[in-house]
């Protein structure tokens, strides 16, 4: 419950404050958000499986974000930033879909 409240408060704060995104971080923010979404769906599925562990969640969340940003950064340096970020988004999207399928089976039993 507290966690859901945290998400809601974060969205509201982001909409109200509307901070200027620094130009250096700008290409990485969308990828980081997608990676964090993936970690959240993974955590939700683990909770439904009854194997949720907060330490694992924190580590996977942070490492997902850092690795995704790192891949995009590397891609930019190599000159294939657009393609590589597309690849990252595709992989994360596939993971999010499979996690969502597992959650759906738990919640709707279908």
């Amino acid at each position: 419950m507290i966690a859901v409240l945290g998400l809601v408060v974060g969205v509201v704060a982001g909409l109200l404050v509307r901070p200027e995104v620094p130009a250096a971080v700008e290409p990485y923010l969308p990828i980081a958000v997608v990676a964090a979404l993936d970690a959240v769906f993974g955590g939700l599925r683990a909770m439904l499986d009854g194997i949720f562990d907060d330490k694992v969640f924190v580590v996977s969340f942070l490492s997902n974000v850092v690795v995704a940003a790192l891949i995009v950064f590397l891609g930019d340096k190599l000159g294939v930033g657009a393609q590589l970020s597309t690849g990252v988004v595709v992989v994360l999207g596939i993971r999010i879909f499979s996690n969502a399928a597992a959650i759906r089976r738990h919640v709707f039993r279908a």
Partner: protein
Amino acid sequence: MSDHDRTNGHRFRAELPAEVTAPPSAAEETPGERTPAALTGRQRLVKGLWPPRVTRAQLIVALLLFGLGFGLAVQVASNSDGDSALRGARQEDLVRILDELDDRTQRLEDEKQGLEKQRGELENSSDQAEEARKQTVEKERQLGVLAGTVAAQGPGITMTVQDTKGRVEADMLLDAVQELRAAGAEAIQVNGVRVVAGTFLTDSGDTVSVDGNKINAPYRFKVIGKPQDLEPALNIPGGVVQTLEKELATVTVERSSKIVVDALRAAERPDYARSSSR
């Protein structure tokens, strides 16, 4: 597939239908003992949501989710700003867009040059048409003076022939007209009748007809031309004036800087003669 799956052997449970977990929970619910492993996913979700518990794990997850929500909202807001459609674009995309814009500018520039050239040609041709029209109008006026269809004015002389005895005849007036023409007269009228190329003079009783119009003495010639040429031409010894005075007529010749020849004649289309210049 997330990192949690690898922590223990529950990995395959997610792949299986929910029926695998449902039977034990249904079977063990009757004794009333609630071990977490016996719960279904749905029950765990409900338990996690309500009642809220403030634990370390909950707070940490809430912090991380706060960060996620914040980043999500910021990204969505900055993406939908509209004015900064190019702000998030990569360098290569920007270069491509710039190239396309350059190409487009070049194409439009070419088109503009073509259109300007066309405009110049059109203006040129319309100038030429205007010039041709002006020349035509000018020529029409000049020819109109000769054909008697327009009024004319300019320097010239006035010759008045007083014929008290009625002895002046058509051939004498014709001589006068011929003499004036030879001296460079450009427009002539006699008593309100314009003298043109086809003019004829005939005797009709005591008076004279010009192109069938009877005119009576005194005969007044209005002539446009160079006065210094016209007057001597009439006054030469044995010329028009002396011939008329022999017939007891009085002739006066006056120079004037402004003579108006305003007798007109309708433009007539010749019946037989056609222009062969075309």
